[in-house]
């Protein structure tokens, strides 16, 4: 039975009999499409009647690469998925790998991963809200956000050498331990950031233009959010009180006292406010984590044969030498069960999950990333119907669509 060729986008666009509607192409190269996505809009005057998304302009075959790189090499590729909070992707990937291996990481590693995941959340929300501000016209807000992101980049650079695309986690541990200089810089950031957040709040929270452009725009009801698999700040702004940090605690989140930020309105303004509030909660988590940072090793013990041992152990103990040999020589590595797992974390954008199928070798058989941006962009046509052309930009910004995660 030969398969019928499915209709192409052009046929879909032309098949509409309402030829009084005007077709406008939005993207893939446009300042307000956050990198490469394309919308074919059907407009009646300024009102959007329909929006057909066309994606794939950044599809780089991430999942296919996952079948050729081993677990420690693939973390560099996960950086490049949600590239505005790459540390969260690293934590998610290695969390899934460690779940597959059944590895329990050390308490210090859990705390450090929590800290960097929350700093990545702050970084992501700063850029998302900054981009919403920029698209709506508030460029000062954007510069404030970017300035704070530069401070975060400083911290990440002191931590692991790269501003972003860090690839900081490894199977069973981290690349380097946190040095006192990093902790000092994080504390300085914790002291100075709330003042900037207050400044940013004062700029936009009660700004008549911003509120008018975002309130009541892009309404997502609670049932729709659940039915369309929305997660993260977008779902929480619509009343779905689901946050994996509280519902399925992973890493060290169970030890901390923080709130989940939700709203009921479900419009762009609610999403913006949820993100601003989440940044404050993240600051609380980082503060508590820094206060109680446990001492001890960052990597799992040598007998697990997954993390590279320290040089002292390699030269002084026989287990260290054997472990080092096993991990660095070709055709060796750690044993992975022939099973499949799905592990998700609460990434800044939503539920970021990895479905990994292991096949015994240290290269994944299938590495699937469940991308929150992909699922949220599918909601976009539903949100934009009936709004005007200028609202497209506000709604698109509030959904935080990262093209690399969208297309992988």
């Amino acid at each position, binding site marked *: 039975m030969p398969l019928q060729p499915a209709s192409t986008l052009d046929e879909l666009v032309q098949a509409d009999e309402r030829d009084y509607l005007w077709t406008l192409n939005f993207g*893939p*190269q*446009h*300042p307000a499409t956050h*990198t*490469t996505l394309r919308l074919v809009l059907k407009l009646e005057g300024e009102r959007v009647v329909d929006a057909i998304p066309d994606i*794939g*302009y*950044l*599809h*780089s*075959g991430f999942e*296919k*690469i996952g079948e*050729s*790189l*081993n677990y420690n*090499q693939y973390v*560099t*590729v996960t*950086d*490049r998925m949600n*590239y*505005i909070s790459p540390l969260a992707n690293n934590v998610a990937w290695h969390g899934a790998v460690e779940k597959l291996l059944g590895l329990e990481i050390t308490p210090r590693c859990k705390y450090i991963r929590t800290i960097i995941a929350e700093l990545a959340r702050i970084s992501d929300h700063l*850029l998302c809200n900054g981009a919403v501000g920029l698209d709506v016209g508030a460029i000062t807000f*954007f*510069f404030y956000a*970017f*300035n704070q*992101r*530069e401070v975060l*980049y400083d911290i990440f650079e002191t931590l692991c050498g790269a*501003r*972003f*695309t860090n690839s900081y986690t490894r199977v069973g541990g981290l690349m380097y331990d946190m040095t006192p200089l990093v902790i000092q810089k994080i504390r300085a950031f914790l002291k100075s950031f709330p003042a900037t957040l207050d400044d940013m709040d004062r700029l936009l929270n009660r700004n008549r233009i911003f509120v008018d452009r975002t309130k009541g725009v892009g309404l997502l009801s609670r049932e729709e959010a659940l039915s369309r698999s929305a997660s993260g700040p977008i779902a929480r702004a619509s009343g779905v009180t689901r946050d994996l940090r509280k519902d399925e605690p992973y890493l060290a989140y169970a030890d901390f006292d923080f709130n989940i930020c939700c709203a009921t309105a479900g419009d762009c303004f609610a999403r913006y406010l949820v993100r601003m509030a989440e940044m404050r909660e993240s600051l609380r988590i980082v503060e508590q984590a820094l206060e109680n940072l446990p001492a001890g090793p960052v990597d799992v013990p040598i007998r697990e044969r997954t993390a590279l041992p320290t040089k002292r152990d390699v030269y002084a103990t026989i287990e260290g030498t054997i472990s080092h040999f096993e991990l660095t020589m*070709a*055709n*060796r*590595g750690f*044993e992975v069960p022939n099973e499949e797992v799905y592990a998700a974390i609460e990434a800044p954008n939503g539920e970021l999950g990895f479905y990994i199928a292991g096949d*015994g*070798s*240290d*290269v994944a058989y299938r590495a699937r990333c469940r991308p929150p941006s992909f699922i949220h962009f599918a909601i976009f046509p539903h949100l934009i119907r009936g709004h005007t052309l200028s609202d497209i930009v506000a709604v698109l910004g509030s959904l935080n669509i990262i*093209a*690399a995660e969208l*297309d992988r």
Partner: protein
Amino acid sequence: MAIEVPENVVVSKLDSLANWCRKNSLWPMPFATACCGIELMATAASRHDLARFGAEVMRFSPRQCDLMIVAGRVVMKMLPVLQRIWQQMPEPKWCISMGACASTGGVFDTYSVVQGIDRFLPVDMYVPGCPPRPEQLIQAVIDLQDEIQRRGTLSGREFQTRARQEPKRALVELPIVTVPRGAGRLSHGTLH
């Protein structure tokens, strides 16, 4: 090109004046696709200010730009868009290929990523890095400015030199080697 001048008119001083003007007011067209786009935004933001070098006006309309900065990987679905935007830019125009993915395909040697935009577009400056630091991008802009000052001509004749007109040396595609993964044996795990 810009001005049609008869053969016997010496325009050397005018050339350097025109080059000075052009180099100090390069209007970039940010073709930001992926992670390098964020570093491009960071270069334009307050800390590493690209506006100091004249490249302040990041216009998104190709008709108003003269420098296209391709930041990020270009996949085969996007390449016709990139080529069309390049064709829409008026001469004189320059192209900076920012990052490893735009220059050579980067980490992504896959079925959909173009292995270097210089296979399909004329590129003037390559910036290595994944992503390049903002200082590297600023250095690339400065180097391009030096290049424009030294070699630029009022009529754009520098683009008509033989070196520029030769078709790009076709980079040979490496043969596709499939290494059979031994069932159950721990495999090598490197990208072939």
